[in-house]
């Protein structure tokens, strides 16, 4: 046989497995009630779809646009975010449009993180942070959110960082900390005080902050989303990431953006021009138009940014109730569209299930086959040290239409009956 020495590069060694590849395949069966992967099965608002149809009908909008972001989109983003950040944002130099927030995370990490750097990641974390940091030859340093046993109600607010523990994670090699608020999977909305603790450390150690705020509009009653970049000294060291998929319930559009100071964004732009160069034009134009519509009504409760949040709050409450009625203790999220729940109280014995996977992986696979209900195991969102701590939790996604939640209700009610 011919010689063939070609294997993968060092940078992707060990990065081939992925929880989604495993679980989206398993849950693709239409008979399964899918509360796993975070995608809406509700329709995007009709004006959003209409704007895409309008854009696609314009000939020149089917050809290349400006690499760093379609002009009308970066203009619209700058207007919306000037209001939100309370500062001037230059559409051409302070914004980069990317293929989803995923693409923004990738561009930021590749632009600003050097081999040998350390990057602090708060556990549980959206799973791509770890492999992306490893791919640039940097070292992920994990710190878990810990449940403070403060009473009966389990809320995402009960999950906190220990300030002393956090401070210990910072050293001269710490290039950045990745913050995700509202948080996936727990749904925590970091308070101003909590953000200040992080900001103080960033300033003290000259550390960057990569702030994944894709769920920024999905914040429930009584809570407020605060942008860490608005804290003193933070704008100059923060990249704030947003997502059209989460803002407008169009995950399949894969458009996101990074906003920050020019001296940081320019490096993300260099990565972008050497990775995929431009994002699709008609989608960007449609998104720009949708943003103008909602920008004009940002003081109106009918603005989609707020109406979606209200719609999801009632789904959140329903989901929490269903789980409680099934004898479970869900962690009620203050934001986002995910809810985690400790399933160890169900006492499902999986010790005879083969394989070395953590308990929650086995539990979800068992739940999919025997209960026809899917979720995502929480240990997928943890570093190696904390997998045991989180392996009794699974994550449900509740941005689902009523009939999906009805079907989940049936399963959960019957489950309870069987174990009674």
């Amino acid at each position, binding site marked *: 046989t011919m010689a063939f020495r070609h294997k993968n590069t060092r940078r992707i060694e060990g990065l081939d497995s992925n929880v989604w590849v495993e679980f989206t395949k398993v849950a693709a069966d239409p008979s399964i009630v899918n509360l796993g992967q975070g995608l809406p099965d509700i329709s995007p608002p009709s004006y959003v779809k209409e704007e895409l149809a309008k854009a696609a009908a314009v000939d020149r909008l089917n050809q290349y646009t400006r690499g760093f972001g379609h002009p009308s989109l970066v203009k619209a983003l700058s207007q919306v975010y000037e209001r939100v950040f309370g500062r001037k944002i230059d559409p051409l130099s302070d914004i980069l449009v990317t293929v989803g927030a995923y693409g923004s995370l990738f561009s930021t990490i590749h632009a600003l993180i050097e081999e040998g750097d350390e990057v602090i990641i708060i556990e549980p974390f959206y799973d791509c942070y770890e492999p992306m940091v490893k791919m640039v030859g940097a070292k992920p340093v994990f710190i878990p959110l810990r449940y403070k046993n403060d009473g009966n109600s389990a809320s995402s607010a009960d999950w906190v960082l220990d300030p002393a523990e956090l401070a210990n994670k910072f050293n001269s090699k710490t290039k950045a900390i990745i913050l995700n608020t509202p948080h996936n999977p727990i749904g925590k909305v970091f308070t101003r005080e909590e953000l200040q603790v992080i900001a103080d450390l960033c300033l003290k150690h000259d550390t960057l902050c990569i702030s994944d705020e894709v769920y920024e509009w999905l914040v429930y009653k009584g809570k407020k989303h605060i942008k860490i970049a608005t804290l003193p000294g933070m704008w100059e060291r923060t990249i704030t990431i947003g997502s059209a998929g989460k803002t407008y319930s169009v995950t399949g559009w894969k458009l996101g953006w990074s906003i920050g100071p020019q001296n940081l964004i320019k490096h993300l732009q*260099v990565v972008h021009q050497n990775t995929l*160069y431009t994002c699709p034009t008609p989608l960007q134009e449609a998104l720009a138009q949708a943003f103008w519509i909602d920008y004009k009504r940002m003081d109106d409760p009918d603005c989609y940014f707020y109406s979606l949040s209200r719609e999801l709050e009632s789904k959140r409450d329903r989901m929490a109730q269903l789980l409680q009625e099934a004898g479970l203790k869900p962690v009620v999220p203050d934001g986002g569209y995910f809810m985690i729940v400790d399933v160890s109280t169900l006492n499902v014995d999986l010790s005879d299930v083969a394989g070395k996977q953590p308990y929650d992986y086995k539990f979800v696979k068992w739940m999919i086959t025997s209960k026809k209900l899917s979720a995502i195991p929480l240990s997928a969102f943890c570093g190696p040290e904390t997998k045991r701590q989180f392996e009794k939790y699974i994550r449900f996604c509740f941005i689902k239409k009523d009939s999906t939640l009805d079907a989940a209700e049936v399963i959960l009610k019957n489950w309870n009956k069987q174990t009674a």
Partner: protein
Amino acid sequence: QTHFLSLSLQAKMSRPVQARRLEGIDKNIWVEFVKLATTYSTVNLGQGFPDFPPPDFLKEAFMRAISGENHMLHQYTRAFGHPPLVKILAQLFGKLLGRDLDPMTNVMVTVGAYQALFCCFQAFVDEGDEVIIIEPFFDCYEPMVKMAGGKPVFVPLRPKAPKHGKLMSSADWQLDPAELASKFSERTKAIVLNSPNNPLGKVFSREELQLIADLCVKHDVLCISDEVYEWLVYDGKEHIRIANLQGMWERTVIIGSAGKTFSATGWKVGWTVGPNRLLQHIRTVHQNSVYHCATAAQEAVAQGFQRELELYGKPDSYFVQLPKLLQQKRDWLVQSLDALGMKPIVPEGTYFLVADISEFKSDVPDVPDSDEPYDSRFAKWMVKNKGLAVIPLSTFYCGAHKNNYNHFIRFCFAKEEATLKAANDILQKWKREKTSS
């Protein structure tokens, strides 16, 4: 205040904020030239995109995907490629390659061919690996190799004099076999092949491909085959896929583009085709960089391909009609440039044409010791003063070789008749001004 900071913090603050992998790859001529074209041009034959729309059947498919009953086409699809699209690509390329292709493992969809190239370099090029790039080359190959820590090794296509009385053809630009062989070393990881070639329009012949293939097999080198212009070949020429040559399927990644295939560059849908043992690593890069590609356009492209597969080889096929249409435009532009004294190199493929501007040099004087190549200054002067945007050929050469072929400019002729006529008017007027002055 620095005396309050620890030494390690001072050291940190004195380091550049950006990563070393960005060194030397921050410049990009497109950013500059696209801006110039937007600001000054009345006729834009610069950047490579059609100014005519995608075909109706494709636009209709997109509309159906956007506004149809299935609103889930606005949500994530399969990360490695929307099932209907990978299935039809596997069918079509299976036919073209004479192989049974598995849509799940032999095909992966990307955000344009650009992202496919990126995934290939990240998947296979480690620090210190050498990658052979044939000049002139689509300019992103060099910075992508560098970003992966690799070392680009350049080998030029060299122009041979055309037959007496004939115009130069892209076929007259050839590799020197001995020179090519000398570029292969034990550090050579891959060679990038682009056929049909941007910017020259060269369509590599079977013999030329065999030359490359023999070296790849001999040295166990991968071939990254950028075939985005695969359907745009003229004069009855055949686009030959290097993966079909003996020993090449197992070491080749083929890259394609819906933007070029269906005149929809703004959709940014591309793909890789190859053996699973290579594609598995490309999937790893993809899942850690972009992960999903937009759904609706993939659905539309799948339907476009369905139609083309049914009409394959028939006169109504877009793959037959588009090259026919573009060949006419090519011939028209060749004629008009020839008449003006701007010597065209007749392209065998793509929608680009390179022309020698030596006759027009008097308007833009040479500046000795300038570090900007002549053709770049010429192109900038031309867009600002004549309103006609083109791209200088030196763009497609590495830094050290930018002055080797610095009196050529590249035109894109995938333009409406009116656009091409307007370009001709500008050049004719310019010629008249020169001869009368």
